[in-house]
């Protein structure tokens, strides 16, 4: 859909950091559609910290008040519905041509459903309360970003792709001449952040390295007590540690313009650092998925623990925060020193990094803006592990399938044990391909049956049951081979959102989806095969290595 000259509504009900990431994608879309008018609907409390940035991005912002704040002793449900109806009326008065729901949460789905608009992107509900996702990119986000860890795309790019952005410019970062360091030692959840004492010790060392530098501790009002605890600590009493709490986004942006380095966890502030092209060191912990939510910033570096449970799910219980221990404070101290001095991490630093005791516990992830969006890469001098190799594969196959872009990615050398795993994945993927072929054939038979004047309900039921059994078998394979889940989940969601108004149309659409799934699995198999050949892997039962 060409969005130029159109009125476009963006729904983003998530937190301020998500609002910033969305605004970045909208800014890219504005370059492609200069005559389009972008409107935003967002929640009151998440708008406030980034209001100035949002005001510059959108034609207008429609605020969704906090429901809790609307409720007092005399409030009735009728009053809340009335408020929400007024919000919908305001939106409808804008004569919106296309709605993009970028929240993917339950309320945003209902909100999208209530808006009068023919073109809806992202999830919404139909009259029977079923979730509908019509567009392919949102089907991808729904199936691959929420709850999956093998997604090669940054969230900003995913929103941009959904908006139809085609061209991504490689932007070189301006040199930062500031002298200050900004530190944000907080996050929305304890899982995602170091404890206060670890930050005090780290800042003690960093401030010793940069004795003439002011370190600003930034945070929300709720962080104030902890910020003061850090700033006033005995270890930091002679240092220039300044608390900068509950400030507006324009005050923060001005502070970032004067700063040379940002250090913190994945949060709103890390996206604000990206907004101002500030070299950043991001400590990714707990449920943070550095692939998806890393700041859109060429000079951002993520520290990602190598421990198997990282990233976890936010709701999964954790007693020991083992991933926090993986990130040694010395790596933060060393990298801060390097980034403060040079604004980047180079090969020379990485060679030294590998020799340190902490070198094998963390991955350092760098970023580069390319014509296909933000590329994240590992700086460690080590062979890719099995998850990384699947990320490479998915980069190639999704760029081809979803964007029609053919990438030339060199094959990787792998550890022998990872080649074994890859070989087993190959066999399972062959089964997936076969199941898609069967499903495509059953859908074709279903289509033929539906064409007949006298429907054979028994045969229809048999075919429907067979398709259901195939779904079950696919999910059984995925349980043992989780890196196949992005492929299987995507085609499951796509199949359940088939286009068409008649059962026959839907059967044809379903057949095409399985046909595409077969071809995707074949392309995937080719990548695995070529990687095995490149590594001269001798498959069991084969006498000679294919070269």
């Amino acid at each position, binding site marked *: 859909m060409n969005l130029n000259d159109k009125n476009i509504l963006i729904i983003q009900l998530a937190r301020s950091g998500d609002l910033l990431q969305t605004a970045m994608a909208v800014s890219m879309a504005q370059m492609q559609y200069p005559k389009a008018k972008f409107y935003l609907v967002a929640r009151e409390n998440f708008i406030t910290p980034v209001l100035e940035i949002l005001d510059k991005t959108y034609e207008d912002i429609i605020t969704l008040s906090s429901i809790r704040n609307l*409720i007092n002793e005399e409030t*009735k*449900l009728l009053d809340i519905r009335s408020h929400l109806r007024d919000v919908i009326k305001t939106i409808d008065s804008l004569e919106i041509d296309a709605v993009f729901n970028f929240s993917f949460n*339950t309320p945003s789905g*209902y909100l999208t459903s*209530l808006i009068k608009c023919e073109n809806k992107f992202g999830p919404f509900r139909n009259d029977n309360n079923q979730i509908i996702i019509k567009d392919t990119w949102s089907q991808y986000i729904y199936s691959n970003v929420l709850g999956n860890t093998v997604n090669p795309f940054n969230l900003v790019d995913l929103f941009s792709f959904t908006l139809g952005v085609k061209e991504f410019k490689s932007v070189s970062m301006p040199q930062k001449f500031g002298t200050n360091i900004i530190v944000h030692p907080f996050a929305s959840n304890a899982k995602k952040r170091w404890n206060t004492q670890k930050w005090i010790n780290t800042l003690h060392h960093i401030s010793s390295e940069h004795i003439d530098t002011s370190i600003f501790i930034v945070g929300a009002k709720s962080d104030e007590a902890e910020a003061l605890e850090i700033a006033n600590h005995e270890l930091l009493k002679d240092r220039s540690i300044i608390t900068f709490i509950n400030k507006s986004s324009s005050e923060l942006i001005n502070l970032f313009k004067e700063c040379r380095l940002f250090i913190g966890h994945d949060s709103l502030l890390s996206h604000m650092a990206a907004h101002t092209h500030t070299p950043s060191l991001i400590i990714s912990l707990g449920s943070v998925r550095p692939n998806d939510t890393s700041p859109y910033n060429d000079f951002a570096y993520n520290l990602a623990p190598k421990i198997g449970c990282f990233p976890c799910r936010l709701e999964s219980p954790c007693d020991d925060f083992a991933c926090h221990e993986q990130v040694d404070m010395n790596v933060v101290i060393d990298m801060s020193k390097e980034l403060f001095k040079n604004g980047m991490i180079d090969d020379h630093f990485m060679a030294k990094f590998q020799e340190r005791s902490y070198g094998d516990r963390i991955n350092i992830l760098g970023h580069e803006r390319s014509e296909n969006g933000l590329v994240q890469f590992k700086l460690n001098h080590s062979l890719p592990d099995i998850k990384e190799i699947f990320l490479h594969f998915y980069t190639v196959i999704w760029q081809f399938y979803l964007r029609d872009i053919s990438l030339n990615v060199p094959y990787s050398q792998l550890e022998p044990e990872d080649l074994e795993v890859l070989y087993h994945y190959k066999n399972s993927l062959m089964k997936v391909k076969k199941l898609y072929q069967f499903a495509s054939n059953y859908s074709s038979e279903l289509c033929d049956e539906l064409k007949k004047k006298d429907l054979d309900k028994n045969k229809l039921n048999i075919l429907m049951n067979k398709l259901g059994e195939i779904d079950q078998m696919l999910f059984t394979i995925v349980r043992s081979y989780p890196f196949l889940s992005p492929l299987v989940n995507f085609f499951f969601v796509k199949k359940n959102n088939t286009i068409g108004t008649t059962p026959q149309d839907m059967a044809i659409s379903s057949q095409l989806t399985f046909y595409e799934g077969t071809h995707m699995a074949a392309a995937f198999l080719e990548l695995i095969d070529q990687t095995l050949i490149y590594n001269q892997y001798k498959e069991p039962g084969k006498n000679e290595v294919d070269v």
Partner: protein
Amino acid sequence: MDGVAAEIQEELKDIEQKIKDLQNLSQKDLLTLLAHTLLEEEKNS
């Protein structure tokens, strides 16, 4: 708060029944669901 929460729970029962009976949901139903899910999100955030 309790009064509104009770009203929502009462209406949710009717909505669930409608969904079971494959009846279409009205705008009022969708507004109730929106209010309910927004409140739930606010509790969790």
